[in-house]
């Protein structure tokens, strides 16, 4: 039982990171119907920006909490810019082309970021400085929670609440929902769809960057190819929850993280990459639009 709870705690921490990445996928998909495969690499860039920013504020020595927040904000800000740059440079010219073309371009951008990462950051893994001092505490007897885990959970919950606030309570959020409902109708109502899309990319990329920083806290080894697998799995999480659906992405991410940690803990770590997809297939066969996705209107 204690072991199970321990695994659950680890799973939720890991899942909240997936959820943060999945949010970016799901928002972009909801608005553009584009699987932005480069999203996982934005997460990688986020981790690296934080790595350099942390060294700037004095890591690997002790870092004050304010400096740690600063590191997070720097990473989020620069990745938001990166996301906007990617959207403007690579996806905007393809707004009217077949969707598959944009998808291939996304794969191209992903390859570009990975290989630029190898040139700029070097191919060997780097050790992410501990900007949150590690300390374990007992949640209940036998179940250990690291301080970094609490930080990860707190930051991701905060960001998700913030996102919900933006999407549901602000004007730009309303515009986002309108564009994702029907882009053409939204633009006829005077919504500048290009600005909304740009904003979506900025927010999604900032969230991915936050995930990159948070993953640096729990798995300190970062390298230019670290974004590939988590990127794909976060996308799977987004599909699992019903793609285009923001709460769905959060739930999907959590399920994915918990399932993965459980499989590693109880079955075998070699099946770690398979469980995500197996879960996905089972859920999609039962509910083809994902857990929270609504059925598609089929027009003749």
């Amino acid at each position, binding site marked *: 039982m204690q072991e199970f709870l321990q695994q659950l705690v680890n799973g939720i921490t890991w899942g909240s990171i997936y959820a943060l990445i999945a949010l970016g996928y799901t928002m972009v998909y909801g608005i553009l119907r584009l699987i932005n495969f480069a999203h996982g690499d934005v997460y990688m860039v986020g981790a690296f920006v934080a790595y350099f920013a942390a060294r700037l504020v004095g890591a690997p020595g002790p870092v004050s909490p304010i400096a740690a927040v600063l590191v997070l904000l720097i990473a989020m800000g620069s990745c938001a810019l990166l996301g906007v740059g990617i959207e403007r440079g690579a996806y905007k010219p393809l707004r009217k082309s077949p969707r598959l073309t944009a998808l291939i371009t996304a794969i191209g951008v992903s390859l570009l970021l990975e290989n630029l990462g190898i040139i700029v950051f070097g191919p060997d893994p780097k050790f992410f400085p501990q900007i949150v001092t590690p300390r374990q505490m007992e949640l209940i007897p036998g179940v250990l929670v690291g301080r970094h885990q609490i930080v990860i959970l707190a930051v991701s919950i905060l960001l998700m609440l913030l996102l919900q606030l933006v999407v549901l309570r602000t004007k730009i959020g309303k515009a986002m929902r309108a564009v994702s409902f029907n882009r053409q109708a939204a633009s006829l109502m005077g919504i500048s769809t290009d600005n909304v899309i740009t904003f979506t990319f900025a927010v999604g990329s900032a969230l991915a960057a936050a995930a990159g920083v948070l993953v640096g806290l729990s798995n300190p080894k970062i390298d230019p190819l670290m974004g590939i697998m988590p990127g*794909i799995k976060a996308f799977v999480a987004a599909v699992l929850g019903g793609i285009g659906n923001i709460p769905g992405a959060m739930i999907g991410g959590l399920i994915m993280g918990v399932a993965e940690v459980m499989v590693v803990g109880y079955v075998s770590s070699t099946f770690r990459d398979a469980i995500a997809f197996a879960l996905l297939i089972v859920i999609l066969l039962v509910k083809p639009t994902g857990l929270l996705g609504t059925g598609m209107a089929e027009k003749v």
Partner: protein
Amino acid sequence: MKNLVLVLAVTVVLVFLNFLIPTLINPYIFQILILCGINVILAVSLNLINGFTGQFSIGHAGFMAIGGYTCAAITFYLGPHVANKAASMGLSATIVGTSFFVLSLVAGGLASAIAGFLVGLPSLRLRGDYLAIVTLGFGEIIRVVILNVNAVGGARGFADIPRYTNFFWVSFFAFVTIVVVRNLTSSTHGRAFLSVREDEIAAEALGINTTRYKVLAFVIGAFFAGVAGGLFGHYLMYLHTNSFTFMKSFEVVIMVVLGGMGSITGSVIAAGLLTVLPEALRPVKEFRMVIYASLLIFLMIARPQGLFGMRELSLQTFRSLPFRMGKKEQKGPEKTRDGTRFQKRRGTKVRAPKRLDHS
């Protein structure tokens, strides 16, 4: 009869080239040539699923892995027994070995086709990106499962596979793939495949069994991917699951889209181009993949419909190839006109999305 003569003629030419080519070029270029041929098989077979039937599959590497591992396991475990039997019966070892290899290639293809059937089944319920992610998932699951099978090397990789693949077999199977996909898509069946892509509901209303054609596309596509996997394993003499990650599937999808969805010649040329390009860029060292990726993005922005769109390359030289011969001249331009019309309709679909469900 005419077709049979042509197939025989092509076979003879390929046999001749098989002996000629290795003496003319160095082993490095020869290897690129072989990989080109294997990629042509993969791209053309995926084009049947993605380009002609419109079912978005990104799990082709999984099918390739099943075929490759099945074929390699058969020649590795059963091959020596068959060779012993043949020796005791006084048959030539090369002939028996080669025909056994071809049989095991077909067996690998069949194993892969069964997997294709299983993956094709969910396509009855899932559409578009959901199907894409499920095929990707299947591909990854296949890879992880193989990684855990000790009999085929597991994480160490499958070593000591006998080398049977030569220029003849690769080019022969590439030729067969092209002919099959070409003839299939220009037959009555082919119109059905295309109709599923263009408008599933309309196709169904016209009495086309869309389910059957979707699954059929998966089965045939997977079969040839399996054969390609077998050729791949018996050329490199070593298989590792790392060759079959989703990056490999992406690579094949890129070939199909870059060549033009629904253009066989496009797939062939894109497969060649994307195999040669990374090798040609070797002199620039670490910038190799950066240039490759930038070129890819540039090409997609410059030609969103792919290099050939939906058209086939219709030079005189291509006309004289056997799979064009039975068709006479007038087919060509008619198809082109169709192609452009399809393209326009697809364009409008993108602007006005059908689905309104996402909150």
